[in-house]
């Protein structure tokens, strides 16, 4: 992958007077983002990190002081943190295959030349993506209701006498939340679909001449060719699922019911900050989340080399 090294660093070319004038315009135009980045990203990130070494707690009026690694010691001994992290990871393990795989399956179906009226189906499968998430939560809360929900109605109709209580049950709530999440497949589906459309058809024709069946074509052409899209979807889904908490917040009012099963990591973080007003400990949890996200993302990028194929490019 090593590019031929050049003695002169790339960004110190001889910028002539005119080029410098153009460059200055460039900075002028990106200035809104630079200011926004400093004010709403860089400064808060550094401040959050600084908070972790202090005792800022709006609930108690202690004078501000430096507490060293106290918050991190609390973190290590706080079993709630690790339990909530366990909840998030358990949910992630269940939801990621669906969040990455289901949009792909739907996109494959929509891409098939055998499907009539693919445009209409595409719009309908995308539609719930624009439903406000609070509205989606209430709609699915009804749909999964153990007594009046249609999901259990169908299950009973096909002979399952004791269908699960879904969102009321500490075990079944995770599949319940995954089912609620399928309304968000829209964006992933569209992206996959565009990826599928970008695969040159002569690859399939060549494969067919070679005697490849549908499965072999899928495995050896479709999946490698859209691996960048799969990779992008996985990274975004991981970053998203690690932050998951708004649905349980609305669904259970942030109580963590039933039985602590919905006390997700980010919900615990949010409660430390907004409910207990313990800024410093909340900040410590936030940095833990950031570190976990960063490590997983870096691992994903590390594996990408082995399986993600960028057409004709050395990335």
């Amino acid at each position: 992958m090593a590019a031929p090294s050049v003695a002169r660093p790339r960004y110190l070319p001889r910028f002539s007077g005119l080029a410098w004038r153009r460059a200055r315009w460039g900075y002028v135009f990106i200035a809104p983002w630079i200011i926004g980045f400093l004010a709403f990203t860089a400064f808060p990130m550094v401040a959050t990190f600084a908070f972790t070494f202090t005792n800022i707690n709006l609930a108690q009026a202690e004078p501000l002081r430096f507490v060293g690694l106290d918050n991190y010691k609390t973190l290590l001994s706080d079993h709630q943190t690790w339990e909530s992290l366990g909840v998030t990871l358990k949910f992630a393990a269940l939801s990621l295959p669906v969040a990455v795989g289901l949009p792909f399956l739907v996109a494959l179906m929509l891409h098939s030349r055998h499907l009539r009226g693919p445009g209409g189906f595409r719009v309908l499968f995308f539609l719930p993506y624009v439903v406000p998430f609070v509205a989606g939560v209430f709609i699915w809360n009804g749909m999964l209701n153990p007594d009046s929900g249609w999901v259990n109605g169908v299950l009973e109709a096909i002979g399952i006498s004791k269908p699960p209580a879904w969102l009321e049950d500490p075990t079944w709530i995770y599949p319940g939340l995954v089912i609620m999440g399928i309304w968000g497949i829209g964006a992933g589906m569209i992206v996959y679909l565009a990826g599928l459309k970008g695969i040159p058809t002569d690859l399939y024709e060549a494969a067919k001449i070679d005697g490849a069946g549908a499965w072999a074509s899928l495995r050896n052409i479709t999946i490698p060719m859209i691996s960048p899209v799969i990779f992008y979807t996985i990274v975004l889904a991981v970053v998203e699922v690690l932050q998951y908490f708004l649905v349980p917040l609305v669904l259970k009012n942030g109580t963590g019911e039933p039985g602590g099963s919905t006390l997700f990591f980010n919900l615990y973080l949010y409660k430390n900050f907004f409910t207990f007003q313990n800024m410093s400990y909340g900040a410590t949890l936030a940095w833990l989340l950031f570190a976990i996200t960063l490590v997983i993302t870096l691992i994903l990028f590390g594996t990408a080399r082995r399986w993600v194929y960028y057409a004709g490019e050395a990335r």
Partner: protein
Amino acid sequence: MTGVALPRAGLFGRRRVAAAGSRPPRERGDSARSFLLTFIAVVAVAAFLSPLLRSITYALKSTDQITQAGTPIYPADPVTFSYQGQDLPLLVVPLPDGTTKTLALFEPGRKASTFIDPANAAAPPITWQGSWRTLDHVWTPAPHWENFAKVWDLIDYPRLLFNTAAIAVISTIGTLLSCTLVAYGFARFRFPGRSLLFTLLIATIFLPAAVTIIPTYTVFQKLGWVGTWLPLLVPAFFANAYDVFLMRQYFMTIPTDLDEAAAIDGAGPFRILWSVLLPQSWPVVIAVAIFHLVYAWNDFFGPLIYTAGKVDIQTLALGLQRFNGIHFREPGLIQAGTLMTLIIPVVAFLLTQRFFTRGIVITGVEK
């Protein structure tokens, strides 16, 4: 570096020696496949959207119907029979001879009740042994549109709608202005640090919001902005990674010839952006506008933390959550409120779905 995934002979097993022309026509099989796949797609999309259908039926049901067991799936009212100035409910009664008959309940009793036969109202009441509560009502379809009117008043819908629309429109204007400028800067100008800054911009997509929210909130509180719209509006004027990326990708597909011609004619950078680039870019401008409108309309966390307790300045999403906390025992009203919250983004999407999906393609595939 090309050729990594090009089909290699042998990858697909043995070569079959079958000339293309010798293959039998496959039209018959194709149409059967088409039918099967389309059928599967119809079933899948019906299941996928069925929660919306359930929500619509519930929004039109009376609370009476929802709280009773064994009612129809569609919105309906029990049928009554007018007898001596009273409205008697019609029930399906099994008779001793094994048949069933639709009778009007005259005198309900725990062990035995008397019924009037609507077909022969002049006849004396019929006594029936058993608990009338076990009998099924006769229903007639009856949509309860008044649920929507009730919610309209109860949550002060016009105010929430105005707040939501105002926040969405103002922050969309901010996003369009700032993202256009920033995308133009990244797409058309060379300057030291450009690729590093652009990478930094993209990296913010993957940054968990939690790591910036605590100081941001604290600063907004110190500024006295918490409890106002400002924390929801001001950041929109400083660009965001998604929309800048989208616009930059679009700008980069537009050839620079016209820019250069305009520059030779003496047009400055702003003039080129406004008169040359933007007139060619309206699909992406519409895409960003609709993206941000829907995003702002559906945002929950921002309004939750910055407008907590200030009912007058809240948005529909928050109003709906508050409403659910009060009226959770009336699912008909909850679902009516839910539909009133989602109708505008859904219609906006249906009207602009081409731009919408194209925008997602640009951000998603080209990364």
